């Protein structure tokens, strides 16, 4: 009898136990399907938010080039994640290849999900319309949205001077290879960091945020600062966002989407008490993580406000930093602990952002390395301190400071080196950065041949020289750039550097 028949039978004759079990099983699968579907819908807001956030932070001459990065992230990460990213997660959880008779053990699915590895291949039945499988497709989509997020984290840091195509290549590497490898290792039930070291990063402080931040740092070191970001004495100059309201609204949208992100990090299994599991298949509740994220925002906003002395941008970024700082232990932290730790995370982000910009002289346009990178690693470290002994995963391996440190030591090079290496190669091929003339004029005119506020006259940027004269900024900055970088204009083949 069909499931529909079993429902109708309720009005006629009493159903058998088997019929009820089949109905409950089907309902549970559909509940899971709906749950992940709606988390995906909510997580779209993260990308709406990143687009608004970064576009607002950009100057008027770089609006659409900034927004287009966020949009095309979806265009390139989706197919690449489908064709090989998901397979990495499904099949590479044991880690690096070992030597000996079991040398192929690194390529296998988790014990808890027999057949999962095979199901992640793009040609498998689980990756298409399949009436027997309600869950695989939506579970894949939730991970896909995480992948977009890693790309969007990087995109804000590199705005206003990176080539769109360079960003897209880098975001493919980050979103469809780097982050998903670390997720396989430390954010799965079968990952070697989990099964051997009890690594615990429940809501992805490090595996999403920290890794994206470390990757972005590697890219920024090769990309260099925007022209004019630092004066001749090396002091940082703050570029005025063209629309601060849009930036703040974008952050609020990101926060809204984070509720979907947090929820999607859990596994729902309504037929087994307590109904929810974290990504390591340890029991959890949706209420606990929702509590943590809300209290985390409160603590982070507060920390960011005081550390920045009320700066709006850093107050909201502090909220994000606060949540990221408590995400790793969001399934087990007491709300008061989350509040206190998030407060410290908000402060840490401001301090780290200031240090990165003023001491290291790295031009991170939106503070992504500080907020996501530094606080992502910080969040994992906090779990080692405040949640030591918690039995993680199906093997109940206790959380330890050493295990968390092992994860950090594994993931920093895993993220930083590909970001640095790939951007170095693009730089050598002259494919990383736009020509300086284009950067000074604005990327929108080169990429799209139009101004995206056509009804408003474009006012040239000016700069005040040491003698007090106010002059047009572009020629001064171009001369300074040419002098500092030994740059000479090239031919139609592109700029070249003088010998």
């Amino acid at each position, binding site marked *: 009898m*069909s499931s529909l028949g079993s429902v109708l039978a309720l009005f006629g004759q009493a159903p058998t136990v088997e019929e009820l079990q089949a109905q409950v099983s089907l309902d549970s699968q559909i509940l899971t399907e709906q749950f992940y579907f709606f988390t995906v819908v909510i997580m779209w807001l993260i990308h709406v938010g990143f687009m608004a956030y970064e576009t607002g932070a950009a100057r008027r001459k770089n609006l659409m080039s900034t927004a287009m990065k966020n949009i095309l992230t979806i265009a390139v990460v989706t*197919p690449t994640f489908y064709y090989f990213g998901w397979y990495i997660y499904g099949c590479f959880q044991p880690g690096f290849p070992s030597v000996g008779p079991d040398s192929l053990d690194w390529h296998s699915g988790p014990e808890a999900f027999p057949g999962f590895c095979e199901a992640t291949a793009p040609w498998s039945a689980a990756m298409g319309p399949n009436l027997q499988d309600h869950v695989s497709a939506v579970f894949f989509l939730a991970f896909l949205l995480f992948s977009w997020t890693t790309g969007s984290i990087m995109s804000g840091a590199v705005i206003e001077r990176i080539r769109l195509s360079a960003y897209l290549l880098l975001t493919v590497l980050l979103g469809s290879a780097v982050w998903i490898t670390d997720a396989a290792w430390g954010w799965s039930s079968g990952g070697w960091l989990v099964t051997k070291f009890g690594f615990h990063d429940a809501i992805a402080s490090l595996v999403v945020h920290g890794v994206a931040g470390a990757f972005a740092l590697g890219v920024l070191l090769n990309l260099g600062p925007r022209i004019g970001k630092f004066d001749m004495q090396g002091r*940082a100059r703050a570029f*005025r966002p063209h629309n*601060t309201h849009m930036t703040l609204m974008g952050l609020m949208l990101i926060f809204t989407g984070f509720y979907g992100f947090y929820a999607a990090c859990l596994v729902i299994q309504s037929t087994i008490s307590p109904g929810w599991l974290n990504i390591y298949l340890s029991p959890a509740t949706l209420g606990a993580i929702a509590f943590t994220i809300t209290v985390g925002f409160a603590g982070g906003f507060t920390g960011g406000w005081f550390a920045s002395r009320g700066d709006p941008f850093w107050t909201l970024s502090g909220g994000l930093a606060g949540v990221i700082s408590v995400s790793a232990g969001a399934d087990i932290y007491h709300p008061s602990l989350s509040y206190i730790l998030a407060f410290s995370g908000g402060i840490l982000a401001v301090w780290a952002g200031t240090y990165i910009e003023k001491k290291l002289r790295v031009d991170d346009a939106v503070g992504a390395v500080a907020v996501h990178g530094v606080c992502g690693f910080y969040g994992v470290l906090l779990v080692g301190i405040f949640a030591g002994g918690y039995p993680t995963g199906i093997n109940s391996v206790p959380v330890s400071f050493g295990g968390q440190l092992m994860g950090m030591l594994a993931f920093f090079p895993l993220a930083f080196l590909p970001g640095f290496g790939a951007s170095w190669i693009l730089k050598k091929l002259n494919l990383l950065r736009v*020509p300086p003339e*284009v950067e000074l004029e604005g990327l929108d005119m080169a990429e799209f041949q139009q101004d995206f506020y056509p009804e408003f006259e474009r006012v040239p940027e000016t700069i005040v020289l040491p003698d007090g004269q*106010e002059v047009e900024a572009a020629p001064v900055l171009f001369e300074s750039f040419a002098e500092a970088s030994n740059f000479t204009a090239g031919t139609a083949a592109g700029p070249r550097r003088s010998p």
Partner: protein
Amino acid sequence: MIDSFPFDEWTDDIAAYWTFGPENSTGTYILTVLGIILMVASLIAFVLLERRKLDAQAQLLRGGGILPPASPTAPGPGFAEPPLAGPSTDPGP
């Protein structure tokens, strides 16, 4: 009666259907390869098309003298960029 619909039969028929055949079939592999070709080609095209645009614009700017040597101009309605002003990255001393 809705319960008389042959739902189970439909389910079996539909479950057996797969675009270009069941999983792991030649047709599915061909579709996968075609998709990967499109993916790689689009990535290459993004690079080439943008390089062409940027080179053309840079050449235009150089040739048109749009970036002349610095010279004093009368203060206009625009804003000067002070060394450390702005809301974004300076939390203060």
